[in-house]
């Protein structure tokens, strides 16, 4: 349950380096796409066998950005977002794995604060993002984002704030990958997913609807996170908090493998309790409680 951005969000169209040759082609492309009669599609088979795609022919699951999920939640009504907000300020832990998880957690919390339209909380979370990023040496990557979060919260530009939190998540992950910290980068995503899932299940539990429950049907994503932990270095894999999260993922996996319409209110509550417990560990560091 994690990540993305509205319109100009990432500014990708302007940041991506292009040579003049490509620019010219791009302009022609856009003109062709806009002005040509409807481009004809090829005729794909109505059904394929996914077994024809061995692992080597399948790219890993694309982890959704938080905005993708919040975009759906926006359409499901107006739950009590303020009631979902977590109190208090987090302290930067020493354990880098926990910092990464907490960073993802805090970014996801930012989305909740945006939904609650709580400008002060949004600004506080923007500052926490910066502090936590400092703890894992990627502060530089989010300085501008943190400032933009504050500015846009002051302007109550909630869509803009969402874009900045999405961007912060992606920038932090990108910076970590540049530092060859892929494992920690995955933990940031995982931390965001865990907090997002806790909130989602709380909302669904508060007003159980099949449409809301649908959002929990994420089997491949849960397996993906499990695989990610499995492929981490042994020190990280054996980190008690990471190991605890893996246990939780393995309990959630079978539940979310059910079709969205088959997940019961009791199962929603169970996912909520599991994610709530592990998020408390991330925030408070009381592993094993």
């Amino acid at each position, binding site marked *: 349950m994690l990540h993305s951005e509205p319109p100009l969000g990432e500014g990708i169209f302007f940041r991506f380096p292009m040579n003049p040759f490509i620019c010219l082609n791009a302009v022609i492309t856009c003109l062709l796409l806009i002005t040509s009669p409807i481009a004809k599609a090829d005729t794909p088979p109505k059904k394929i066998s996914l077994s024809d795609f061995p692992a080597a022919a399948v790219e890993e699951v694309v982890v959704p950005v938080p905005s993708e999920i919040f975009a759906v939640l926006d359409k499901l009504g107006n739950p009590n977002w303020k009631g979902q907000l977590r109190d208090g300020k987090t302290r930067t832990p020493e354990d880098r794995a926990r910092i990464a998880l907490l960073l993802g957690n805090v970014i996801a919390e930012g989305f909740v604060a945006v939904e609650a339209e709580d400008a002060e909380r949004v600004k506080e979370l923007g500052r926490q993002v910066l502090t936590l990023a400092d703890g894992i040496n990627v502060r530089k990557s989010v300085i501008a984002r943190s400032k933009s979060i504050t500015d846009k919260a002051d302007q109550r530009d909630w869509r803009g704030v969402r874009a900045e939190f999405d961007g912060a998540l992606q920038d932090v992950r990108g910076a970590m990958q540049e530092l060859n910290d892929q494992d920690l980068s995955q933990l940031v995503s995982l931390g965001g997913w865990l907090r997002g899932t806790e909130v989602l299940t709380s909302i669904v539990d508060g007003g159980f609807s099949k449409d809301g429950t649908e959002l929990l049907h994420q089997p491949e994503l849960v397996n993906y996170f499990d695989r990610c932990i499995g492929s981490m270095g042994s020190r990280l894999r054996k980190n008690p908090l990471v190991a605890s999260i893996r246990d939780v993922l393995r309990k959630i996996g079978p539940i979310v493998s059910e*079709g969205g319409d088959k997940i019961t209110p009791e199962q929603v509550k169970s996912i909520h309790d599991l994610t709530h417990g592990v998020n408390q560990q991330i925030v408070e560091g009381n592993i094993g409680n």
Partner: protein
Amino acid sequence: MNFLSSLRLSFGSRKLKNRFAVIALALAAWSPSLVHATVDDALSFAYESALPYYKQGFSIRKDAWGGDLGVREKKAVSSQLFKGNNYWFLMATDVKGATLSVHIYDDNGNLVDAESWQKGRFAGARVSPKATGTFFAIVQILKSPEDRTPWALVYGYK
């Protein structure tokens, strides 16, 4: 060149750009015809093909996926999509004369494109998931003057 195949791209990455520089040099030494055909160029085109959808209010993901494929070779990109959102998947290559396709299938292998188009080195498919779950964007090079054709895929949602 298979090392390109499973490359997952996050642009703006200096490391990746360096990697492409090394790849470009290697390709230049091996085949002059491939100097301009790289995955990052393909990605530029993929983002450009997303521009009209961005203008329609779709948020375009910064993450992108790409590699290189032989003619008629297919690859699946698995995605978690949510009922209630609309998605456009956009694929491109910078190889002139190449044609490619992208179509979306659910986890039972059923085609779920709400609409799709294919125009030379660009292709797009839209899906409005009827249920939340795992979906597969199946990308394919239909025709190309090159043995291996770099491709890139991006997606947007609203």
